[in-house]
C-alpha cells in the first residue's frame, strides 16, 4: 500500500516539543533526499550543513526548522545569470540570439525546442528552428510537425546532412531575415562517445562564423528520471560545449530530478526550465522554491 504524507507533517511530528535536530530526523531527511536522486555525496553534504546550523541555532517549531531546511537546500540551486534571460518577454541581449539544445538520447530535446519556440513566439519574438539532428530516423519529420504547431519556420537539409552546415544555413538566414531567436535541435548523443561530442564542438565553431558571439546559450536537456549518471552527462557536455543552463524534463512523472542539486553543486549550472508534459504548453520557468518543496515535500512508502 502506498501512503503519501507531506514531509512538513512528518517534520512537525518529529520535532514536536524539540528544539534540536535528532538522529531520527536526519535519517529521515537522508532517505528522502536519496530517494529523490540527490545522490549520496550531496545528501551527506546537506545533512552536514543542517547539523552544523542546528548546533548554533534554536528552533522552536517544526515550521522554523522546515524553513531552515528549505533554505539550505535552495541555496544549492543557482540563479540564471542576467546574460541569459529566463523570461521570454525580456529583451534579448543580442539578436539573432542563438540557442543550442543538447543532451543524451530521448531526453526531450526536440519537444523542448518546440516548447521554447512556442514561448518566444508568444512573446512576440521572431523565431526560427534549425533541424540539426540529421541522424535519427524521422527526426526532421518530428521537428517539422512541432515547428508547424508553434507556427515558426524550420530550416533543414534532411537525413544524413552535415549538422554543422544546417546550423550555418540557419544562422545566416537569421541574420538576413532579422530573426530574434534561433533554436537549434541537435541529435541525441551519449556523452561518452567522443566523435559525437566532437561534432557538437564543430557545430559551436560553425555557428560563430556568421555570429561571432553565437551560440549565446547552450541548454543541456536532462531527463528528470535520470539517476546519478546525469552528473557525468553534465561534466562531459560542459567539456565540449559551453553549457549555460539546464532543462529538466518529464517532471510530470513521479521522479523528482534531485540530481540537479549535485550538478549545481559541482558544475555551477542553473536549471532554467522544466518540462511537465508532452504538449507545447508544458514548459515552465524553473522555480527553486517550488522545486525544493516538491523534492522533500512528499515521500513514498
Amino acid at each position: 500500500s502506498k501512503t503519501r504524507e507531506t514531509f512538513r507533517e512528518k517534520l512537525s511530528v518529529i520535532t514536536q516539543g524539540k528544539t534540536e535536530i535528532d538522529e531520527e530526523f536526519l535519517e529521515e531527511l537522508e532517505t528522502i533526499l536519496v530517494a529523490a536522486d540527490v545522490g549520496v555525496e550531496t545528501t551527506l553534504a546537506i545533512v552536514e550543513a543542517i547539523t552544523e546550523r542546528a548546533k548554533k541555532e534554536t528552533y522552536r517549531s517544526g515550521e522554523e526548522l522546515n524553513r531552515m531546511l528549505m533554505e539550505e537546500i535552495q541555496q544549492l540551486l543557482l540563479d540564471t545569470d542576467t546574460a541569459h534571460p529566463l523570461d521570454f518577454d525580456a529583451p534579448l541581449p543580442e539578436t539573432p540570439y542563438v540557442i543550442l539544445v543538447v543532451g543524451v538520447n530521448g531526453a526531450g530535446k526536440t519537444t523542448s525546442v518546440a516548447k521554447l519556440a512556442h514561448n518566444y513566439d508568444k512573446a512576440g519574438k521572431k523565431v526560427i528552428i534549425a533541424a540539426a539532428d540529421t541522424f535519427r530516423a524521422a527526426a526532421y519529420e518530428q521537428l517539422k510537425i512541432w515547428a508547424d504547431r508553434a507556427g515558426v519556420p524550420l530550416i533543414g537539409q534532411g537525413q544524413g546532412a552535415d549538422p554543422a552546415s544546417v546550423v550555418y544555413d540557419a544562422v545566416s538566414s537569421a541574420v538576413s531575415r532579422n530573426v530574434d531567436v534561433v533554436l537549434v535541435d541537435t541529435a541525441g548523443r551519449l556523452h561518452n562517445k567522443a566523435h559525437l561530442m566532437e561534432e557538437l564542438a564543430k557545430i559551436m565553431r560553425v555557428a560563430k562564423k556568421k555570429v561571432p558571439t553565437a551560440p549565446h546559450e547552450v541548454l543541456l536537456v536532462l531527463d528528470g528520471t535520470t539517476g546519478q549518471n546525469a552528473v557525468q552527462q553534465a561534466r562531459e557536455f560542459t567539456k565540449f560545449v559551453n553549457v549555460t543552463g539546464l532543462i529538466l524534463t518529464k517532471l510530470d512523472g513521479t521522479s523528482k530530478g534531485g540530481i540537479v542539486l549535485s550538478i549545481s553543486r559541482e558544475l555551477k549550472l542553473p536549471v532554467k526550465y522544466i518540462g511537465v508534459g508532452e504538449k507545447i504548453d508544458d514548459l515552465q520557468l524553473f522555480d527553486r522554491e517550488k522545486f525544493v518543496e516538491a523534492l522533500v515535500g512528499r515521500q513514498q512508502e
Partner: protein
Amino acid sequence: MFDSLSDKLELTFKKLAGQATINEINIGIAMRDIKRALLSADVNYKVAKKLVEDIREKSLGEEVIKSVSPAQMIVKIVNDELTELMGGENKPLNLSPKKLPAIIMVAGLQGSGKTTFCAKLARRLKKNGKNPLLVAADVYRPAAIDQLKTLGEQVEVPVFSIEEPDAMKAVMQGLEAARAGAKDVLIVDTAGRLQIDEKMMAEAEAIKNALKPDELLFVVDSMMGQEAVNTAREFNERLDFDGVVLTKLDGDARGGAALSIRQVVEKPIKFISIGEKVDDLDLFYPERMAQRILGMGDIVSFVEKA
C-alpha cells in the same frame, strides 16, 4: 566517475590495519561502503538496504581464504549475491510456435527506446528465419509512425500503420494484416506513457487484453534513477509484463536500476540495447551486469581462482 567498489573496500580494510579477517567491527564500515556504492549506481535505496543486510550475514559466516584479502572476499560475496539477484542465466524469448502470428508488444516510459528496440528485434528475428511485421501503435508522438517506417526500411521489415489516431484499431488491423500476409511474428510498438497516466495505462491494458501477446516487454532506460522500481512495479501491476529490455547500455551509467527492477518485479531482463544502430542489440548476461553495477575489473575471477 567514482572508484570501483573493490578499490573502496581495499582502502577501508587498509585503514583498519592489522585486521586481516572479517569481523563485527570492520564489517560495519565495509557495509557502509557497499551501500554507498550501490546507491551511487542507482540501486534503489530500499533494495540496497536489504541487499546489504544479506551480504553482511553471508560475509560474517564466511571463512577467509588465506590468499585473498577480506576486501576481495567481500567483493566476491557481493558479486555472487548481485548475479543471483540479476536472475542467474539468460532467459530467451518465449514465442508460441502454434500461434500464428506470435505476438510481441513493448511498453515503457517516454524516450526509453521502444521504437528503436522494435526495429532491432525485427531484424534479429528476421535473421533467424522469421517473417515479422511491425505495427505502429504510437498514434501520439509526432512522426512516431515515420520513425518506425524509416527503421523498418533499414531492417527490411514491413510496417503496418493506419491514418486514424486510434491505437487499438491499428493493432487489430495489424493483426489481420499479419494473418493475411502469413507473417509469423507481430511486433507492436506503443507510445511512451507515464505509469500515473490513467488513460494511457488503460489503453495499454486494453491492447494487451485484445492481443494476448506471447511476450510483453517493458523497455527501460539504464540511466534511470530511484523511481525505476515504482515505475516498473506499476507497469507490472497493470500489464503483468513478461520481461525487461534495458536500453542505452552503451553509455556509462552503472545501471543499478536494473537490479532494483529485477528484485521488485521478479521478471527476467531479456535484452540489452547498446546503441542507436539496428544491430546494437544483445542478450542479457546477469553476471556482466552485476560487475558493471559494482564497477569491478577482474577481481571476481581472481578470487575464483584463489
